[in-house]
């Protein structure tokens, strides 16, 4: 076991998979010599060579398109998109190609590309370095969508993603790269060293795709969330003093419906939280799924707490971000409703 922050855990996952499988290659902007603007690939080019850790032209569509081609030729590519905000120029290659190749060729062809990309606020990056576009990708059948909330899961899920023959879009919440964040902007940052999931095995292990994690067991309320908000939810539940069952979705699509609905059937109340904008966010699907399965167990409407339906404004990160206060208000609302 070692102490790792999420960046180190991701780097370790990449290192281990590259060591194990010579077909794994990495491609992205600034990933090679420099090691990535968030340092996730630091040292990998030195170790595995320029032909396996490849600096790319600034063309997200090209990166995804070219890695698809590599995947068709037996490689197992990991594409890095520098910021999730910049994945859109590659959107067509994801939707029309990556997600569909296996289907349209009736299983003859497939390309096991994993797309890693940092998402969410946290670096005061303004509206073009803070987006969480995961919902959009969950609407596309044929790709898996993953977002870890801690170093342990990040490494285990990333290894699974790369080894999976399905294409995966792997969102990394950059706000918690260096430490868990409980949603209170006033408090100093903590580091992963103080968190049990900052303990990460040095070697190979996997966390399976498609399974949610019950982060905290509880009886009064289920909070379904993922990414940064897992930590905020824990803090908010403590703040309100409610015995909440907190579920980290982790794999957004395909979704582990069972873990979610079993919990809600037990607690009878549900809050759903994410950082992305609310309208047609992934929370909508979570609400829809839960109410379909658990309607007769629900004692209160399912509440959504999410980013506002605005871009992420530079000056108002903290007003935009669904922090402790907002989650706490949401929890109270769910608990009080009857």
């Amino acid at each position, binding site marked *: 076991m070692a102490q790792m922050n999420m960046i180190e855990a991701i780097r370790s996952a990449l290192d281990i998979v590259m060591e194990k499988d010579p077909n794994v*290659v990495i491609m992205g902007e600034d990933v090679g010599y420099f090691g990535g603007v968030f340092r996730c690939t630091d040292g990998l080019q030195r170790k595995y060579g320029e*032909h*396996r850790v*490849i600096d*790319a*032209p600034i*063309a997200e*569509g*090209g990166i995804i*398109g*070219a*890695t*698809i*081609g*590599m*995947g*068709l*030729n*037996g*490689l197992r*590519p990991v594409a890095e998109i520098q910021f999730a905000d910049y994945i859109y*120029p590659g959107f*067509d*290659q994801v939707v*029309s*190609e990556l997600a*569909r*190749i*296996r*289907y*349209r*060729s*009736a*299983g*003859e*062809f*497939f390309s096991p590309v994993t797309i890693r990309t940092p998402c969410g606020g946290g670096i005061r990056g303004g509206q073009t370095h803070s987006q969480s576009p995961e919902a959009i990708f969950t609407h596309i*059948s*044929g790709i*898996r969508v993953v977002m870890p909330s801690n170093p342990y899961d990040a490494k285990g899920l990333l290894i699974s993603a790369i080894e*999976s*023959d*399905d294409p995966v879009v792997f969102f990394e919440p950059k706000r918690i790269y260096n430490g868990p964040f409980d949603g209170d902007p006033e408090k100093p940052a903590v580091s992963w060293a103080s968190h049990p999931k900052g303990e990460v095995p040095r070697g190979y292990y996997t966390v399976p795709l*498609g399974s949610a994690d019950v982060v905290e067991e509880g009886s009064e309320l289920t909070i379904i969330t993922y990414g940064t908000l897992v930590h905020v939810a824990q803090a908010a539940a403590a703040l309100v003093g409610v015995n909440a069952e907190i579920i980290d979705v982790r794999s957004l699509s*395909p*979704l582990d*419906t*069972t873990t979610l609905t079993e919990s809600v059937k037990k607690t009878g109340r549900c809050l759903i939280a994410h950082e992305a904008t609310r309208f047609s966010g992934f929370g909508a699907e979570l609400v829809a799924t839960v109410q379909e399965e658990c309607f007769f167990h629900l004692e209160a409407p399912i509440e959504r707490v999410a980013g506002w339906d605005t871009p992420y404004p530079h000056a108002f990160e903290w007003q935009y971000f669904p922090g402790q206060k907002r989650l706490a208000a949401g929890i109270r609302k769910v608990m009080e409703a009857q």
Partner: protein
Amino acid sequence: MSTKSRLHIPHPSARPGDKPDFSYLNLAPAGSADKPSIDAKPRDIEHLSMNLVRVLDDEHRAQGEWNPNLDPEKLQVGLRWMLLTRVFDERLWQIQRQGKISFYMESKGEEAVSIAQGMALRAGDMCFPSYRNTGLYLYRGTKLVDMMNQCLSNTKDMCKGRQLPVLYHNKEANLFSLSGNLGTQYPHAVGWAMASAIKGEDHIAASWLGDGSTAEADFHHALTFAAVYQAPVILNIVNNQWAISTFQGFAGGERRPFAARGIGLGIPGIRVDGNDFLAVYSATLWAADRARRGGGPTVIEHVTYRGGAHSTSDDPSKYRPKDEWASFPLGDPIERLKKHLIAEGHWSDEQHIEVIEEYRVKVGAAWKEAQKFGTMTDGPFLDPAGMFDDIYAEIPEHLVKQRQQMLELES
């Protein structure tokens, strides 16, 4: 708003009712283009993108440095495959008109591109074709009946009923799955070729798209990545003058040939008479050798003409002269190779008619066979349960549930 617009709008040289006019094509005489060595610097061979590589002259003789000097037998093979492609297309078109398949796209007039290139490439080379490369699927061994099964979406359909007719694939034959989206296969070819280079293999990749599709982003991405990493790839632009109703000028073809699109990135371009089997073969071999020996990518523009409608949904008489193809100065690739072989004494009109007849029978037989596996109206039908397969490597729970629901509703 002022009325004096200064916006330039490209105009085709002729619209319905006008006399066809191909004077805009800058045609060089056969044999006039020089053939550089395959290790020539891109900078030194830029003129190839402006010129026109032609081998067959007006007397149907092979001329100049680009003459590949192919055995007559090989040429006959080429002619036969082009004929099979034409016959196949004609029959399938007819079948669509009879309402037996939902849609069809033919490659009439562009057969040389698929067959000559198919013959110039090696079996291990990977192809990322467009929907107008029917000949390539045939030449590389896709059975007639399998192509028809695909068009019928029947029980033997290689695509399991998921794709529009003509969107074939053939994994064994290194033919990628066709997409309905224009140009998306271009960066795949580059990535595939990069992987080949990474692995130190000498397979190359080739891709095809139309003049109109060069405007898409993927075209740019493919050229950029190919140039940066010197990927062993041939990037073919099949300039058949039209993109549905829009003339190639709307893709920026008015001022420079498409073959020149890569020269700003240092990618050599060859403009070739796309209806000249020998020229296409020769240019492809040159580019393939170059790529295989580490010389990087080549853009090849095939100057040709879309002999038919865009697809069965299209009516070209609405936007171009009916007789435009007949006036196309580069003619019909089949006629030209046929006349060459006849001129050289290796073919005859009788043989030609015989082969066509033979192929009609063959295609007819395949059609009979294909129908046994089901048509749009008559069974056997594909099991719709299959629509939930192959979305992921393994079917996930929610799709199992949806499949169940669907089957209950259907029963």
